[in-house]
């Protein structure tokens, strides 16, 4: 029934809510029914954040069922592993190769999972796991806060919308002084996923 069930995960402050908003608006402009909901704790910053985005001809529940996510767009590695139970077998996981250690890890009480462990958890659900160098790329681009739009660029490779539709939603949602650098970040993401997803 559903065309696309998408999970956007990350750490509060990484801009994932804006990213999932733009995805939803692009889907609406393309004529789909859309529901989008964010699950976040009480903190403004630094907690786990998940957006459920459901795109179809008719959507009922705003929350996606476990085992039915088609695409996972993760801004941080630990947060990618945390939500893998929601992935359907064979789902696409796009993961920013970046670590934001929680406090307990900083204090040496808990251990951040290694790349092998993260990959191991995700590979129990799918072999379509793509790590992208989002943080590195947008830092080199000159604005680390464009990570969310870089990740959108990665996602756009798998989404049934034209590039122009994405650019239109970006220009509607972003202030004009930040538009060009975000369009650049979008292109970088689109190119990078194209290179890793052959």
């Amino acid at each position, binding site marked *: 029934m559903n065309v696309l069930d998408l999970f956007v995960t990350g750490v509060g402050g990484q801009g994932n809510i804006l990213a999932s908003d733009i995805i939803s608006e692009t889907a609406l402009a393309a004529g789909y029914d859309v529901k989008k*909901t*964010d699950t976040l704790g009480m903190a403004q910053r630094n907690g786990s954040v998940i957006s459920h985005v459901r795109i179809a001809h008719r959507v009922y*529940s705003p929350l996606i069922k476990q085992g039915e996510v088609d695409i996972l767009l993760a801004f941080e590695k630990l947060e990618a592993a945390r939500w893998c139970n929601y992935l359907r077998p064979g789902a696409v996981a796009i993961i920013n190769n970046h670590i934001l250690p929680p406090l307990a890890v900083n204090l040496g009480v808990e251990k951040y999972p290694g790349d092998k462990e993260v990959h191991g958890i995700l590979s129990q659900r799918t072999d379509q796991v793509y790590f992208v160098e989002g943080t590195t790329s947008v830092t080199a681009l000159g604005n680390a806060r464009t990570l969310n739009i870089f990740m959108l660029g990665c996602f756009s490779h798998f989404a049934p919308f034209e590039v122009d539709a994405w650019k239109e939603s970006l220009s509607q949602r972003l202030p004009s002084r930040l538009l060009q650098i975000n369009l650049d970040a979008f292109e970088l993401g689109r190119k990078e996923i194209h290179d890793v997803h052959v």
Partner: protein
Amino acid sequence: MKRLLSGNEALAWGAYHAGARVATAYPGTPSTEILETIARFDDIYAEWSTNEKVAMEVALGACYAGVRTIVSMKHVGLNVAADPFMAASITGVNGGLVLICADDPGTHSSQSEQDNRHYARLAKVPVLEPSDSQEAYDMMAIAFDISEQFDTLVMVRTTTRISHSKSVVDLSRSRPAPTGEVGFPRNVSKYVMLPVNARFRHPLVEERMVKLAGFAETSPLNRVESGERNLGVITSGVAYQYAREVFPDASFLKLGITHPLPRELIRRFAGQVDRLVVIEELDPFLEEGIRAMGVEVTGKDFIPLVGELSTDVVGKGAVSAGILTEPPVPPGITAVADLPKRPPLLCPGCPHTGMFFVLASMGQRLKPPDSGDNPAKKSNLIITGDIGCYTLATYPPLNAMDTTACMGASIGQALGMEKAGIDTNIVAVIGDSTFLHSGITPLVDAVYNEGKITVVILDNGTTAMTGHQEHPGTGVSAQGNKATKVELENVVRGVGVSDVRVVDAFNMKELRAAARSALASPELAVIIVRGACAVGVPQRGEPRVVDAGKCNRCDVCLLIGCPAIQTVDDKVYIDTTLCVGDICTICQQVCPQKAITPVTGETE
């Protein structure tokens, strides 16, 4: 015009297009965005009221004056506003009056998950429950009509998942031109609730409920969606969406009006299906009402009373009740449970951190998470807490909060502990917005009854946790205009506190000195800790860095709990994209090795 709107935005547009002219609220998740959205419309008066009780009273006055009025709050806000809410039921309205009450199943950001539909039964007012943003928009117009037709306050009950989910809305209506004169028709028997009048009004309230029940029988908000006969589902709110996915072929009675119940409609529906179930979030409100009619029904024997529902939860319940046979989800991956958690923290540059670090140090509380209790380090300080971002100081490493109950409770609780005979120091910690909301009356109580507690008011100049709303202490109105600023120190001195200190939130020396002297003081002391919320500060100063040569890994800086301070490869490291720099420097001030410096390497 089709737009993607959150439930809260849709409710606001609905009220606007229904001709509402006054809107009041106190911020509270998940209701805040309703008034925030309304405040952007220019031909409607919108205010952040001091608290929910005041919001309800202002709304009541406005509706008495003949204009359509909307008041919004979170579920526990109605506890604060319960008195005028009950009064509104008895007097009824003049202009339409709609209360939007946002419940929080799952306790995403609240101290409880009460089901506020019980309040409607208590007050004898109708309840509407939207299932998505389109219904939220459409129901507002109907709610105002019901309010005026039946002379009643109408409760629209939303929940976190409805309020904070975005879905497609056709904004099909437009705002009507203002009709009728604003005016208050003096009517003593309706508006002056002397016992003699209240006795006269009560039967009218009961008659109103009978009429509303008749209305609910035929309202299109209550609709049957015919399917197979073997299963009939009665549901409302977001639970409808989950149930529709779990039981795609069942017959549905979707209730948009959940109080009073449309009894005949329910009986007819029950007669048409083999098995009747209710799928509802939190309490068995509909289920008990239907069972009391003598209709055989189940629900909460397989749908949890506790927490938020989802398609997964309803599916699991359906399997346990034998309605479905297939397991609803594939088996989970066990390794996920062992991943480190990411509990929310005070932000980098948070103006609350310094004072909590001082209190935690003085109270011997600082310790990493899961490091166990050290009996040698018994805390000699009790910290009663309140509701706001600062409640996060409860978590390690600060461990700096011992109670949190409801808005404004910290001060009364501290006084109660003192009067019970506790002989250690007691500090009440409360934020600026919470203090104005309901901290003033307990402070008056502490003055009057000669308490010796210390009250810390953390003044970050905003209502931060709900997303930076204005309040009486900010000097700015809900609509962004200049307003009269209520000065906290004038309030505190005005109610009779003489030991009042105002200190800089980022000056550790000042904070320590103030805390020491207030705790040593033989009388009631108030410390106002002033510093702007870091999230609202546009200009970031030069970030701090750790000089690895000087750092001896004493890890005192990690005990601040700042998310910018991390350890990488056994070295302490400051994430310069998170550090707010010059405005804060708390880590630099607490570092015994002087190993933390501005990024350019200059030290003081």
